[in-house]
């Protein structure tokens, strides 16, 4: 008797787990993301093997700032796979160029680069890095339409949550590409990713998050890679 009960119990758990996994997979299909990429080209582009690109986040706005994680993600994706591009990490570049690329001192227009490169120390560092294109990324992810509620209780015998929550995430990012040689803006790429996230809770909350920022990052990086390679 004593040996049978644990087997029956674990069978019950397994069948519950199977049902839960089925539910999760079914819901995951719903919490998808849609991404739109727009490209506006203003000049011809190409890059050689010994040249590199730097991707920088804009941080001048008063109420938001471009997350460094997103900028890092775009840089990493551009440096991977076919036609990979050498990308200088943002922090390494900003520290090496200190204090010329801080939020208050960074150039706002491609034309401002001329004045900046007139400084010997800046021009020398830029040559050392071998930078052909400077990409300025600006944007943020906004969460809207939060609905539903979840209540959790904890007692001496255990605890649990019950309820349902949902919200929509919208990641909108612009990338402006500056040619460091011609000192001109050669193009702009806009990425907009939206997705609905769900948080059902039946004893344990199961977050089903729409990965809008990851999708925006992947699509923006792929488009930027093609853009810089002149495709």
């Amino acid at each position, binding site marked *: 008797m004593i040996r049978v009960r644990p087997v029956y119990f674990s069978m019950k758990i397994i069948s519950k787990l199977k049902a839960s996994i089925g539910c999760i997979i079914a819901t995951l299909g719903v919490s998808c993301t849609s991404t739109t990429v727009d490209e506006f080209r203003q000049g011809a582009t190409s890059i050689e093997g010994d040249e590199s690109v730097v991707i920088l986040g804009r*941080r001048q706005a008063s*109420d*938001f*700032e471009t*997350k460094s*994680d997103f900028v890092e993600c775009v840089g990493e994706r551009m440096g991977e796979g076919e036609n990979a591009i050498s990308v200088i990490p943002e922090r390494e570049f900003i*520290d*090496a*160029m*200190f*204090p*010329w690329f*801080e*939020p*208050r*001192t960074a150039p706002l227009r491609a034309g401002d680069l001329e004045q900046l490169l007139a*400084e*010997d*120390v*800046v021009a020398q*560092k830029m040559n050392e890095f071998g930078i052909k294109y400077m990409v300025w990324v600006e944007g943020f992810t906004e969460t809207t339409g939060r609905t539903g509620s979840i209540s959790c209780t*904890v007692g*001496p*015998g255990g605890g649990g949550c019950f309820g349902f929550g949902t919200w929509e995430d919208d990641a909108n990012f612009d990338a402006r590409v500056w040619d460091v040689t011609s000192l001109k803006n050669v193009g702009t790429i806009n990425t907009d990713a939206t997705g609905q996230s769900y948080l059902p809770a039946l004893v344990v909350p199961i977050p089903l998050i729409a990965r809008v920022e990851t999708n925006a990052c992947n699509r923006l990086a792929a488009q930027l890679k093609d853009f810089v390679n002149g495709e």
Partner: protein
Amino acid sequence: MRLKIKTQFLWSKVLALLLVASLMGSCGVSNLVIEGSFPTPNINKIPLSMAIFYDDALREFSYMEYSETGREEINIESGESHIRLFNAVLPAMFEEVIEIEGMDDPIIQEVDAVFSPTIEEFQLALPEKTKLDVYEVWIKYNMRIVDRSGNSLADWVVTSYGKTPTATFLSVEDGINEAAIVALRDLASSFSLNFSQIPEVQDWLNTL
């Protein structure tokens, strides 16, 4: 059965104790020492020999943030980080930099001027109060340069600003620290790039 009830009772006591301890902990003042490193500026050096004097008010500078009910919430100590910042910036700005312990130090007679920064105001904005998704820090400084005899050569105000976005796993202390480091870097950039353009400094440099 009796053993099970006893164990459950013990667990509930432990949980209650933990709850009380965490509530008591949340009532205290948290102390935050600003930590961070600063890169050396890439700028052309000014051919000057400058003495730097950090007074005790700067060395021991701290700011207390109060809750909306007037309770002491977070004590932010930023004196040491300011000294680390100036020690990274000034040697890149001037040909020679010497730190002095007081205005009566005899080494003053060997330098062109003495630089003495002070913090006039420190302000903090937390997301829970502003309802914005950023931590913000403002700092107002008074920069003073005096000659070997202690006469004022230049005296001007510099303000710096830093912000950092909120993130899922970022604690309040880490958010404030990051915003303060951005503000200190902002000070370094505006001070080092605008130093020669301050009218009083320009007038003084023209006399050398």
